[in-house]
């Protein structure tokens, strides 16, 4: 039954992505600004412009353009970037691993911080610890990720130059990867120096992304933890002789994770959005950086391709979240 | 009659297992509920969790729409009315919820809650009049008027329930449906609320839903026992509690701990429980003897027995030639027996050839459709008595030793609702069926010692050749067979299959004379 449920979710993802594609396409056509005007050299003749339009298919009716684009997607071709003159698919595949590494690390840090903070706050309820954690959570949530980027960059990159502040990898290191998943490849090839350097570069942007996320996750987690703590099965666990910390971690936490996981799916969307600015600030060569230059250049095919990629990532993440939801909540298993 | 409920059934979609495109399977919540309530009567609906009692209450008040059956309120069938047509019904029927706290708006004072109800139903038109009226209602339910300015959360559970009652009686309803309204309360508070409800009983009718039979005994004059969505038993409170007909009701009563010292009570349960499960026989694997099996209810019995997995069925009829087809279709399972139950030799031969029977179904019967006085002669009356009474008795006598030898088993006697009241148009038939009912009771008592369950089935008109001339609602013979076999498996002694039988039996429990008068209208010719 659960397999059937998964199949259904996968099938439902197709119309979702299709809708995103339609919306993106239409939006890109109705916003003001002409991509061709951005790329023509000064003094180009109307014929030249017409020529360019023909090359990129921009002279055809909108519906035809859309069908051509869809057809391309079906064949794995996302079109050609106007500004970079390269295949959109290739561009995205080159940059995607960098962003994935950043996002996964941020998510990991956020979850770790959120769980630790919530457990501590519940364990030391009504003490100074709880109030201090409250303050931290409030601050972390109030400051958006790009501001965190600037703050971290200022303190730990400039004033205290502990971490590199731009790029993904020190170019002086001789590392010649086969894939673009530098981090995983470095681990598998035992290049610890590379791993260390990658982590140093990731540290500031990933913490900047993780702080606000951790704060909002821990709000929810704490709420559901303290609700779980008033449940009868917690009383029973206490009467079985478990200490308060054991009761929280062994009994309440897993139950409290169920609503939190649902939220983290929504949060993931913000995280992807967050990478755009944060990557730009740290000149991190990921999708976000690519997206900014694509927007600045009005590179229609590239923007379309990127948004589609983000949509697919979002759908996949939510699918994974549904899966883990079922793993944690036995009521959903076997359905 | 204020409310007549006939064959009321509800099935809902299983939303738990619904998908984007399929809306889930229909699940039966309850079915075939029949009862009447007169003005001023109170009916208790009792059942364990999952019996469907709350859904039944919500269907009676039309918060749910029934999927089958009729709900006659003041003579109007409200079962399929739309919400906007229910206006006057809504003011005449009020629902009191179990959880008074969540049923009362937390942001309104008691005064607002009650006066809003009064204004909504246009009992009062001005605010000040509504407020005075609200005060009077609080007097009525025994709360000080000063509580008008309080909010629900400032009251205790018992007080909130009183407010719920005040709100319910505000529009002067004819019927109040109360769902488990005393179950969360302390004994002393509960007793006060029960006393209040007893006082209010005079003003209108009450349907009181509860899991607690003791509470129902205090409050109600009729009781309906519900079990897994089926009407298990319906009767006057005094009779039902003193002499419960269904085994399930007896079990429920036996499980209630009375506040008396009784050190053997807990052990008794275990002992009885194991006996029960052994006692109730299963149709699956049973060896059955069915008389009059060639048509009507008898034929339905045979089909039903086959589908329930009876291991062998003796199908007896006066003329077995028509049974050949059936026998060849179910080779090895069916044994045709030529039998006229008024013929002692044939009976003796039948018993001798069927010594493995553990369920006897006395279905054969005749109906001459003749009256008592205006009939030409006594031939029909004699014939009916011969078959319906003497023949059936002879069968019981002949098979009693066989059943004893085979561990008790069961006898089903197909009687009629006319066993209990005379329909003059077929007066002599009723007499013979009445004799058969009395005989069934006597046989039951005599065979109790050998653990033979004797079931009396009293259907209304059944859609068979026998009732061809009867124009009115008729039961499906299959339903009759089904209910009878259920009774054997559950150990029920009296079965009233179908709406008509239920209705008449309910009527007899309330006012036998009225039923007699009603039937007296059906004169011969």
């Amino acid at each position: 039954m659960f397999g059937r449920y998964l199949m259904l979710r996968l099938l439902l993802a197709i119309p979702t992505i299709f809708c995103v594609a339609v919306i993106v396409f239409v939006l890109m056509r109705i916003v003001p600004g002409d991509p061709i005007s951005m790329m023509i050299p000064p003094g180009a003749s109307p014929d030249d412009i017409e020529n360019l339009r023909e090359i990129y298919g921009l002279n055809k009716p909108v519906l035809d353009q859309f069908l051509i684009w869809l057809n391309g997607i079906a064949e794995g071709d996302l079109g050609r970037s106007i500004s970079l003159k390269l295949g959109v698919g290739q561009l995205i595949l080159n940059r995607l691993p960098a962003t994935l590494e950043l996002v996964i690390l941020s998510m990991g840090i956020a979850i770790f911080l959120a769980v630790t903070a919530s457990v501590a706050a519940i364990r030391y309820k009504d003490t100074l610890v709880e109030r201090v954690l409250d303050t931290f959570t409030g601050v972390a949530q109030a400051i958006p990720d790009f501001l965190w980027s600037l703050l971290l960059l200022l303190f730990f990159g400039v004033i205290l130059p502990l971490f590199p502040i731009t790029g993904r990898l020190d170019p002086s290191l001789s590392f010649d990867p086969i894939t673009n998943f530098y981090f995983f490849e470095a681990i598998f090839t035992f290049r610890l120096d590379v791993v260390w350097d990658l982590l140093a570069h990731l540290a500031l942007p990933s913490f900047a992304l993780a702080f606000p996320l951790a704060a909002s996750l821990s709000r929810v987690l704490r709420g559901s933890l303290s609700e779980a703590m008033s449940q009868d099965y917690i009383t029973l666990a206490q009467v079985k002789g478990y200490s308060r910390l054991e009761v929280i971690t062994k009994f309440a936490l897993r139950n409290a994770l169920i609503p939190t996981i649902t939220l983290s799916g929504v949060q993931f969307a913000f995280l992807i959005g967050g990478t755009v600015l944060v990557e730009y600030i740290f000149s991190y060569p990921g999708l976000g950086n690519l997206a900014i230059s694509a927007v600045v250049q009005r590179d229609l095919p590239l923007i379309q391709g990127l948004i589609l990629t983000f949509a697919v990532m979002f759908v996949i993440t939510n699918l994974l979240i549904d899966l883990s939801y079922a793993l944690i909540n036995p009521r959903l298993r076997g359905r | 009659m204020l409310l007549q409920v006939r064959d009321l059934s509800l099935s809902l979609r299983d939303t738990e297992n619904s998908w984007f495109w399929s809306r889930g399977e229909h699940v039966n919540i309850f079915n075939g509920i029949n009862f009447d309530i007169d003005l001023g009567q109170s009916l208790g609906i009792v059942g364990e969790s999952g019996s469907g009692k709350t859904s039944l209450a919500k269907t009676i008040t039309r918060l749910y729409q029934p999927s089958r059956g009729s709900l006659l309120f003041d003579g109007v069938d409200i079962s399929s009315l739309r919400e906007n047509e229910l206006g006057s019904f809504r003011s005449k029927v009020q629902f009191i919820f179990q959880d008074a706290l969540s049923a009362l708006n937390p942001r309104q004072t008691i005064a607002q809650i009650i006066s809003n109800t009064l204004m909504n139903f246009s009992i009062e038109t001005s605010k000040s009049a509504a407020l005075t009226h609200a005060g009077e209602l609080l007097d009525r339910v025994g709360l000080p008027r000063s509580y008008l300015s309080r909010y629900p959360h400032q009251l205790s559970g018992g007080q909130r329930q009183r407010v719920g009652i005040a709100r319910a009686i505000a529009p002067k309803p004819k019927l109040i449906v109360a769902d488990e309204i005393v179950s969360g309360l302390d004994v002393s508070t509960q007793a006060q609320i029960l006393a209040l409800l007893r006082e209010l009983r005079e003003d209108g009718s009450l349907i009181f839903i509860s899991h607690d039979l003791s509470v129902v005994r205090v409050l109600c004059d009729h009781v309906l026992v519900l079990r897994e969505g089926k009407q298990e038993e319906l009767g006057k409170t005094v009779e039902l509690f003193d002499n419960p007909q269904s085994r399930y009701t007896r079990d429920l009563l036996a499980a209630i701990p009375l506040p008396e010292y009784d050190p053997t009570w807990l052990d008794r349960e275990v002992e009885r429980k194991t006996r029960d499960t052994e006692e109730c026989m299963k149709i699956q694997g049973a060896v059955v003897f069915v008389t009059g099996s060639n048509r009507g209810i008898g034929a339905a019995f045979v089909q039903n027995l086959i589908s329930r997995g009876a291991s062998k069925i003796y199908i007896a009829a006066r003329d077995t030639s028509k049974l050949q087809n059936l026998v060849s279709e179910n080779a090895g399972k069916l044994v045709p027996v030529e039998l006229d139950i008024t013929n002692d030799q044939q009976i003796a031969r039948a018993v001798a050839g069927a010594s493995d029977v553990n369920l006897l179904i006395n279905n054969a019967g005749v109906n001459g459709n003749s009256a008592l006085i205006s009939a030409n002669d006594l031939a029909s009356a004699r014939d009916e008595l011969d078959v319906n009474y003497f023949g059936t008795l002879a069968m019981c006598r002949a098979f009693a030793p066989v059943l004893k030898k085979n561990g008790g088993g069961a006898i089903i006697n197909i009687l009629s609702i006319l066993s209990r009241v005379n329909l003059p148009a077929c007066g002599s038939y009723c007499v013979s069926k009445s004799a058969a009912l009395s005989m069934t009771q006597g046989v039951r008592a005599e065979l109790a010692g050998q653990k033979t369950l004797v079931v009396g089935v009293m259907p209304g008109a059944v859609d068979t050749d026998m009732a061809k001339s009867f124009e009115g609602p008729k039961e499906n013979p299959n339903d009759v067979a089904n209910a009878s076999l259920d009774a054997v498996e559950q150990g029920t002694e009296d079965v009233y299959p179908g709406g008509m039988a239920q209705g008449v039996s309910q009527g007899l429990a309330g006012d036998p004379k009225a039923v007699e008068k009603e039937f007296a209208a059906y004169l011969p010719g």
Partner: protein
Amino acid sequence: MKNILEIRDLIVGIDSIPPTWILREANLSIGEGQIVGLVGESGAGKTMVSRVILGFTPEGSRVFGGEIHFCGSKISDLNRDSRPFLLGKEVTYIPQNPMTALNPVQRINDQMTDVLIRYLQLKPRDATKRAVSLLSEVQIHDPEKVLKLYPHQLSGGMRQRVLIAIAFACNPSLVIADEPTTALDVTVQKEILGLIKRMQSSHGTSMLFISHDLGVVSKICDVVNVMYGGQVLETQEADALFSAPSHVYTKALLSATPRYDRPGDLLEPVSDRLVTEMGKTILSWDKRAEACFYK
């Protein structure tokens, strides 16, 4: 007879000004191998008695007077860590609502074996074996299968059986059952009561049985205590209490309990006069206590 637990003139209240009294000189003793009933309406303080024993008292509460003895050793405060017994091993608990008392995300096996591993130092495999025999002791068929299930896959009656098995797992000397059958249907209630009684006598455990239901208490308890307003008003052997109750409140409760074997007009609500009288008694106790502890 030796007493497992003795509570003498226990006064517990929330430490505010004026204090909120919860137990007003309550007395209770539980003899070895006895089932002792504690009946009363809500607010009578019966749950507080169980919490005092277990060490789960509300925030800010403290012992103002009186003594608690467990197997001869005195418990002087409400702190859980100062209990002279191992909670979960020597003193265990059967909760009220079986539907919510089991952890929804843990298999029955884990919820049963944890105490066995923790307190009897069994290996997980041996603990599971012991869990199987415990489950058959509480008459669950196919215990191996049930151990692999999650709580939501079991009926209420089954879950209460599991909880009873957990309570008796380490052969405790005292089991506290707090309204263990209130949430169940009558027929299931009867089975569970029989089961509790059998488990109690086969393990030789003492038991505190808390209930608001006089009927239930009459069937399972050896001795019954009637509580009201934080005091134990009457303590009697069950047969004596139900045949000849001595306190007016007990009598009033008995006649306010509806009975299916008696017509409704015999039901007598507790009279207002009695309620006022008992309220007065409590009020004067409170005044005396305030004078005693705050001047």
